[in-house]
């Protein structure tokens, strides 16, 4: 009797500019499956890695090959939105459900929503578009001002973002958000991905005398350089540096200059989460990032849950049965995956009609706390219910 095998195509940028992220995604997902003994029921799990090479064209070639030659039955994970856009069509064409791509940007949602029938059940994200999640920042600021902890001398804010699809999205969100809250945006800058020299920019900002600097910048070198140099040029204002914590080694690059900067990131707060991080570090030698690594780990766990359910329900595991369960139970909110069950990054993954293809956003669902760093440790300062420390305004 032939062994029952489920072939999963894990997609990540394993080479090229984002290889670091890709590697973390790969390793975290592998960890999750290993913990399950590489088995789902009586099915043996075989992970086939698809290197997206950060290039939509190359990614589609590799994807088609993985489907046809290596026979993957389901796709998992992803990082770049541009890759997602190109691969979505393939997933639909080959009728392969592709689940939990991490790439967050809104273009995926646009494409998905443009032809729901075609893509439904064939593409699912595990990171919602930033516009939905970021409102926390303004709530937090209003709260800090109201409680008198933060006394800005003016309502001037500087906004920056990385010049990527993600950055564009978050920038659009931030602009609206701050505008609505009555802030004056005095500078808007998109930063190149490989940039390390910010003296001109920072000096320019300094002269504008903002009360707050807000930005999102996922490139570890860029964001840490920005923070370090902001201290060097003497820009002493509260800084929200969304994305600082995405790379595990950020503190070894930014050092004490990162004290008091704020970030919004998967909390990795529970014991389970901490154990996972420790495990990861033991196994692979470097600190995992909660966003790429943690989310990939959670996504894989959630997938295992979905697959188990599919096996239970239909007695077999293949593209079709998985898709059925996804449509019938995951997207209707019957299957969720929460902190109690072991989710380490957010409170709960749950999907519904309105959120698609994103997970639902909310404090009890997919929600990122705001944390403030001190000596390399992040402490949650918002929402209040989770807070571990008081917000400290840099002087």
């Amino acid at each position, binding site marked *: 009797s032939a062994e029952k095998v489920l072939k999963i195509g894990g997609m990540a940028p394993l080479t090229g500019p984002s290889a670091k992220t890709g590697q973390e995604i790969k390793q975290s997902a592998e960890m999750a499956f290993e913990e399950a003994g590489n088995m789902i029921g009586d099915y043996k799990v075989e992970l086939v890695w698809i290197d997206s090479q950060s290039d939509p064209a190359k990614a589609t*070639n590799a994807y*088609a*090959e993985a489907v046809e030659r290596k026979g993957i039955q389901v796709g998992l994970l992803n990082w770049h939105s541009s890759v997602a856009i*190109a691969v979505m069509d393939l997933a639909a064409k080959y009728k392969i459900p592709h689940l939990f791509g991490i790439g967050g940007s809104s273009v995926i949602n646009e494409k998905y929503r443009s032809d729901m029938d075609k893509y439904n059940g064939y593409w699912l994200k595990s990171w919602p578009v930033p516009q939905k999640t970021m409102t926390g920042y303004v709530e937090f600021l209003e709260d800090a001002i109201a409680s008198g902890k933060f006394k800005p001398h003016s309502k001037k804010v500087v906004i920056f973002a990385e010049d990527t699809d993600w950055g564009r999205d978050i920038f659009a969100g931030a602009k609206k958000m701050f505008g609505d809250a009555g802030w004056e945006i005095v500078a808007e800058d998109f930063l190149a991905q490989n940039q390390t020299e910010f003296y001109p920019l920072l000096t320019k900002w300094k002269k504008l005398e903002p009360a707050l600097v807000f930005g999102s910048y996922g490139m570890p070198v860029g964001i840490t350089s920005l923070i370090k140099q902001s201290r060097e040029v003497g820009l002493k204002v509260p800084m929200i540096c969304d994305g600082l914590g995405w790379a595990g080694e950020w503190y070894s690059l930014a050092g004490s200059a990162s004290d008091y900067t704020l970030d919004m990131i998967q909390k990795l707060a529970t014991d389970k989460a901490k154990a996972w991080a420790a495990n990861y570090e033991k196994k692979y030698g470097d600190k995992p990032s909660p966003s790429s690594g943690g989310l990939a780990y959670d996504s894989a766990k959630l997938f295992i849950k979905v697959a188990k359910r599919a096996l239970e329900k239909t007695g077999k595991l293949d593209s079709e049965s998985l898709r059925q369960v996804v449509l019938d139970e995951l997207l209707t909110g019957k299957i969720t995956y929460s902190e109690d069950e072991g989710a380490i990054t957010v409170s709960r993954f749950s999907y519904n009609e309105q959120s698609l293809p994103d997970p639902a956003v909310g404090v009890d669902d997919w929600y990122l706390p705001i944390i403030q760093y001190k000596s390399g440790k992040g402490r949650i300062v918002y929402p209040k219910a989770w807070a571990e420390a008081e917000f400290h305004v840099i002087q």
Partner: protein
Amino acid sequence: MTQLTQDNSTGFSGILGKICLSPMGLAGLAILFLLPLVPPFNQDYMIRWLISGAIVAAAAVAFDFSAGYLGIVNFGYAAFIGLGAYTSAIISNKIGISPFITIFAGALVSAGLGVLTGIVSLRLRGMFAICFTWFIGIALMGLCLKLDWLTRGPLGLQCDGFFEGNSSLPYYYLILAIMIFTYLVLGLMIRSDYGLAFRAIGQNMEAAMTSGVHPTKYRVINFTMSCFFAGLIGGFYGHYYGILTPELLHTQKTVEVLVIAYIGGRSSLWGGIVAAFPFIFAMELLRSSLSDLPGINLIIYGVFLIAIMVYYPGGVAQFFKNLTARKQRSTSSTAQKAKTAEAGV
């Protein structure tokens, strides 16, 4: 038009020769036509690889048209491809006309930039000319990122496909047609007086000028043609993959084409085509079978590239040339001494 290589062969191969094809080349093309119909190549992913191969092959031909003959490596070549791709995508998105028409618009815009580049870079030689085109490429890519109201910047621009349906096969025949069209047009130009002028300018500008060749004219013509096809290929690229990002204009992409063109053999045009398909297949297979150690395929690629350049810089074209030369040598057993003697008189 002067037929330089007047083969005394008549009949079928003579006719073929007139359109720059040898019997072997024709056989190769026939194979390319039939390949996607026979297993294992009829699988869709194989066809996708064939398409990638054909894209690079066509680009390498058009690239070699400048680099191999005029001696100017257009290091911003990917940007010209990208310009065509974006133009075609934007027009077809905004106005909604068929991509079959807009890719020519894209090609024309690329050609237009080619004209400008040709005129403006006229006084530049060697590395300076190369870097000039490179800078144009970098600037274009920067523009593509910054003009996001037009190109959607890093968010990526989605484009419609040429054909309805899921099969890649029609796309394959389309790009094959583009590739052959590129080769024939450029090949005929090289065969004509134009080719002579290009080579003369490429080898010694001053001597070419004193021989009466008008460098501006021919350099511009060359750039225009090469960039026109770059744009055409770009248009195909966009409408095939469905998404364009500024990364398409990146130097890295030029390097991919350049490598194929050089492994194919400079100033051969067809060398790029012969090199592209096996090379793409080998690279994809390497990548997929060594996926446990991502990057090792690229190391092999690098080593291979260096080895070729050190030990066999003539590339595929040289290989074939040597083959035919050996054949000739074995038939005509002229003593070497006689040869030297002739040379010595």
